[in-house]
């Protein structure tokens, strides 16, 4: 593998809907998936100062066809985003989809085939089509959402033999981490509380987040003067001991998009283009880890490949997002990336260093818990946040000074580890 892009590619436009519920959340309530996807795509094209007919190709991804009932999504969307007659493909890399799409776009541009590519991701994990209605939707139950999502997981052996995400992706990883570093379960719980406070603070400052209430405000609303007592209460049960429900994903409906062009044409489209310096991708199937649940071979490889392609070293990173559908997996990756030292995240979380105003800011959009998680659209939402931060457009949660070099890590269930390294031009 040469592991190099022959020509640079830049992100010149980004778009993202509010993440929420198509039956409830005001900004997206009542929209169809076509309209939701178009909303993100049009924001990205406007941001890139590009018309749909100027595009060379459109890469559209989503994972859970059961809720959208839109296979062949690129063609079904073509008349909604105005890009018909272009080259296109519907692809999926589960929850890494949009960032794998960015990597595919960069490769297409570097090869000389396409110059301008739109990547779109969409997902509905809270609502599905009602019967065969063109516009009516109904809620999805939690079990139904996971059963459909788990179609992406080992169907020969693991799923029929009792696999379930919360233990394998949360509880066992947490126990592996605690044993490795000699951390008491109570101290782990306290660090997770602090991490959640940070993420919910970020969500409260983000008008596109699904949860915009701080943990402290939620505790007070439910009658607790002490948020730590609230954390340990029946309102915050263990989903997989020692992991609680507020350290895991909040499912969402949403869409995201980005426009990539040749680096030497980037200034024509944007005053603040962001270079996609490199990426790393590695995949595997269950079990995702050997004896140590806190160390995943695919993550190690994805980080290595991304650093190698980009020529960036961990100490150059100013901002990091790691896939935090499970907070503990996200923090294991923060340590693996070299952004924070091994065995130290609990201390960093307790000291507030992972906040937007800390020295190691992470997941300032709120992460999977507070921003929400719309499977295939989420990686694009993570990149959207990094681009806003690099441009100084992140509002109240703006990192200062504005970050120059960012890394975005995502896990596509199950399991595609993806890392993008981005830098402001």
């Amino acid at each position, binding site marked *: 593998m040469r592991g190099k892009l022959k020509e640079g590619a830049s992100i010149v436009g980004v778009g993202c809907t509010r993440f929420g519920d198509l039956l409830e959340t005001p900004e997206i309530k009542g929209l169809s998936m076509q309209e939701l996807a178009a909303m993100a795509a049009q924001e990205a094209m406007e941001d890139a100062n590009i018309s749909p007919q100027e595009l060379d190709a459109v890469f559209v991804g989503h994972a859970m066809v059961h809720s959208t009932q839109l296979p062949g999504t690129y063609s079904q969307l073509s008349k909604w985003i105005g890009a018909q007659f272009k080259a296109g493909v519907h692809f999926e890399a589960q929850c890494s989809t949009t960032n794998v799409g960015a990597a595919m776009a960069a490769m297409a541009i570097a090869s000389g085939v396409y110059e301008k590519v739109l990547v779109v991701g969409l997902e509905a994990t809270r609502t599905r089509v009602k019967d065969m209605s063109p516009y009516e939707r109904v809620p999805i139950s939690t079990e139904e959402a996971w*059963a459909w999502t788990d179609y992406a997981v080992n169907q020969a052996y693991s799923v029929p033999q*009792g696999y*379930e995400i919360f233990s394998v992706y949360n509880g*066992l990883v*947490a126990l592996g981490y*605690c*044993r490795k570093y000699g951390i008491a379960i109570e101290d782990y719980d306290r660090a997770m509380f602090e991490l959640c406070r940070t993420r919910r603070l970020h969500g409260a400052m983000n008008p596109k987040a699904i949860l915009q209430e701080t943990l402290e405000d939620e505790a007070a609303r439910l009658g607790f003067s002490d948020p730590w007592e609230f954390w340990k209460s029946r309102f915050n049960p263990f989903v997989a*001991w020692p992991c609680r429900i507020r350290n895991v994903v909040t499912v969402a409906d949403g869409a995201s998009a980005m426009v990539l062009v040749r680096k030497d044409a980037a200034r024509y489209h944007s005053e603040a283009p962001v270079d996609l310096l490199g990426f790393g991708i590695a995949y595997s199937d269950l079990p995702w880890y050997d004896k140590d649940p806190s160390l995943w071979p695919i993550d190690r490889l994805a980080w290595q490949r991304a650093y190698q392609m980009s020529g960036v070293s961990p100490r150059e990173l100013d901002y990091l997002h790691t896939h935090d559908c499970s907070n503990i997996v996200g923090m294991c990756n923060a340590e693996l990336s070299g952004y924070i030292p091994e065995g130290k995240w609990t201390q960093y979380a307790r000291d507030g260093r992972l906040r937007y105003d800390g020295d190691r800011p992470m997941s300032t959009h709120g992460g999977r818990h507070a921003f929400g998680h719309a499977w295939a659209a989420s990686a694009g939402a993570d990149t959207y946040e990094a681009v806003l931060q690099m441009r100084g457009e992140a509002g109240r949660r703006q990192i200062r000074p504005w970050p120059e070099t960012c890394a975005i890590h995502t896990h596509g269930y199950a399991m595609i580890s993806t890392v993008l390294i981005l830098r402001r031009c």
Partner: protein
Amino acid sequence: MADSIIKRYYDGLAEGKLLATHCDFCDAYTFPPTTACEHCGNPDVEWVELSGKGTLLFASHGAAPPPNARFVDIAPYTYGHIVLAEGPVVQGIITGVKAEPEELQALFERGPVPVEPDILTLMGLKVLAWKLV
């Protein structure tokens, strides 16, 4: 009818056997078995039966109701991370340990413990679960 590896594995479970494949090229096991050595990709592998001896490293639990209807009657159940005597790492349901914080914490503090297969039948399918020895 062609031979299905998956079918043969489940038929093995019905006889109380843990069937794997072994790769002579890299001297490693693939368990449960597939069409290639999961370590090096070699398709030329041999069927072997594992001893069933394992060590439970960690145990947590899942949700109720579970996403898979097969497990409705036993959810929430304890789920463990196990290394087998021959080397493969497997994950599965742990019987005899309640999916409650106190019991799981006691198990965590005890450290790795030996386990053996406890093969269940759920909605007509053999399920490889594990019990403490």
